[in-house]
């Protein structure tokens, strides 16, 4: 297989998506399946996991040290990429996708594959909604904002009540864990957890399934290698929505 050192990429351009989210366009592409992620090496800073939002882009929300540093990068700057890693979403014919905040990043390429019938898009405010235009071009988008500045006033989970969930063969979800757990509770009540998939975020160091920092309880499955996409059924009786671990491995509540 050869040495799997990071592939160097140059940033071609950076696009402002929302006040806190930017898309970084690379000068080369990576074959991937939606939901897979790459380990992004920000030289001199750190290496962090990011979903691919297309074969040559990552879409990043400012969250802390590494992402702040990445936001100072512009056209011509270099990054290192390892991957893609992980499993990605299971394909379907009639998918309902549910995205919260930057969670729209791995769902845009899924929608572009023409298998998403409906996409529920949520954010705190209108200006924080990610990929509204791009998603509108390829699927039927329904919007909810916490403050009611666009679409329904409320959470994406509230949008689910207006849908006939039986019409979809799969439900694919990515967003903040509190929102995903709310979706999981809702689908469990309706008895359709087996049709759902969630993209789980855990602290990752190696990205390839050996260090153990991303393992979830009680199965011990590795989010980086056995996931990051897991079935709702598997997540029902798990730490998902309750706690995760930090860089040292200590538990912290969600």
């Amino acid at each position, binding site marked *: 297989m050869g*040495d799997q050192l990071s592939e160097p990429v140059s940033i071609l351009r950076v696009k402002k998506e929302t006040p806190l989210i930017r898309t970084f366009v690379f000068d080369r592409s990576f074959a991937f399946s939606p939901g897979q992620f790459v*380990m992004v090496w920000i030289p001199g*800073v750190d290496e962090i996991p990011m979903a691919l939002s297309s074969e040559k882009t990552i879409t990043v929300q400012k969250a802390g040290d590494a992402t702040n540093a990445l936001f100072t990068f512009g056209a011509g700057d270099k990054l290192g990429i390892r991957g893609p890693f992980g499993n990605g979403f299971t394909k379907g014919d009639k998918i309902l996708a549910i995205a919260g905040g930057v969670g729209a990043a791995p769902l845009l390429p899924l929608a572009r594959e023409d298998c998403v019938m409906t996409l529920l898009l949520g954010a705190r405010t209108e200006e924080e909604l990610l990929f509204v235009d791009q998603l509108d071009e390829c699927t039927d988008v329904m919007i909810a904002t916490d403050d009611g500045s666009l679409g329904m006033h409320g959470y994406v989970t509230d949008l689910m009540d207006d849908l006939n969930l039986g019409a979809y063969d799969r439900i694919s979800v990515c967003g903040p864990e509190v929102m995903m757990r709310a979706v999981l509770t809702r689908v469990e009540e309706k008895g359709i957890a087996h049709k759902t998939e969630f993209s789980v975020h855990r602290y990752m*160091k190696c990205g390839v399934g*050996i260090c*153990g920092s991303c393992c979830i309880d009680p199965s011990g499955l590795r989010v980086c290698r056995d996931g990051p996409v897991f079935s709702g059924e598997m997540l029902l009786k798990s730490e998902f929505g309750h706690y995760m671990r930090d860089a040292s491995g200590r538990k912290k509540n969600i």
Partner: protein
Amino acid sequence: MVSIRPGPVTIGGVALDNHLLLAAGILGTTGSSLARILSLGAGGVVTKSIGPLPKDGHAGPCVVVLENGVLNAMGLPNPSNAFVDEIAPLAKKPVIVSIFGGNPDEFALVASWFEGKVAGFELNLSCPHADGYGSAIGTDPSIVEACTRAVSRSGIPTWVKLTPNVTDITAIGKAAERGGAGAIVAINTVKAMRISTAMGCPVLGNRYGGLSGSAVFSIAVRCVYELYEECKIPIIGCGGVSTADNVIEMMMAGACAVEIGSAAYNDIKVFEIIKADLYSKDGITPEEIIGCAHGRSAV
């Protein structure tokens, strides 16, 4: 290849389900991950190295997978005493807690948290990329002896894991033996580095790291062979083991069990796969081959 008879074994005071252990720092950060590896066929598991204070570890990149090995500089990330609760559900299972510290008192302190709760300890005196810990102190025989004694005094089986990054590994092995070690584990990773030619800088966040996997198997076999010549306590072979034939080779060099880490990268079912090849009911007893290569030469 010869096959060996299956059955429980006791190595350095620790009862194991078979001769294959999970090496420290691979999938050993959580209790549920360790339980998963036991359920996937490991005869025992060594945990992530636990230290006196929680540590986040080095900035990334921490791991790079190479053609025939793994280069890592995790930097000993660990939850410290929160790990006691983490492995509580595994009481009575063959769990060995790996410990690191900067001096004998720190080793003794960490060990005290786990007394009565685990099958044994493995002292990490060998990690090549953590300032003030691991091989930074594990290359000095008198410190190794003192740290070993500080833990073995508890009466709990204490294994000492050695670094290959020394001129004479037997001097360190003998120091561990004097300190009361129940077994020696050889080897930890080999200090190493790669540079990204595209970026013009080292590929690991910590610049230096440790090499493991098939690339270091020959070094590990040599170290086990040398230790077997000089030490009386059992030796556990570690470094690049990925097949049943590798296990037999380690045994012929003098190991009575092996630890497996990087090979889990290719397949997490590595323990079951090796067991299927290694054991058969009409096989020989391991005693017939352990150390058999000594006193024999190719010419």
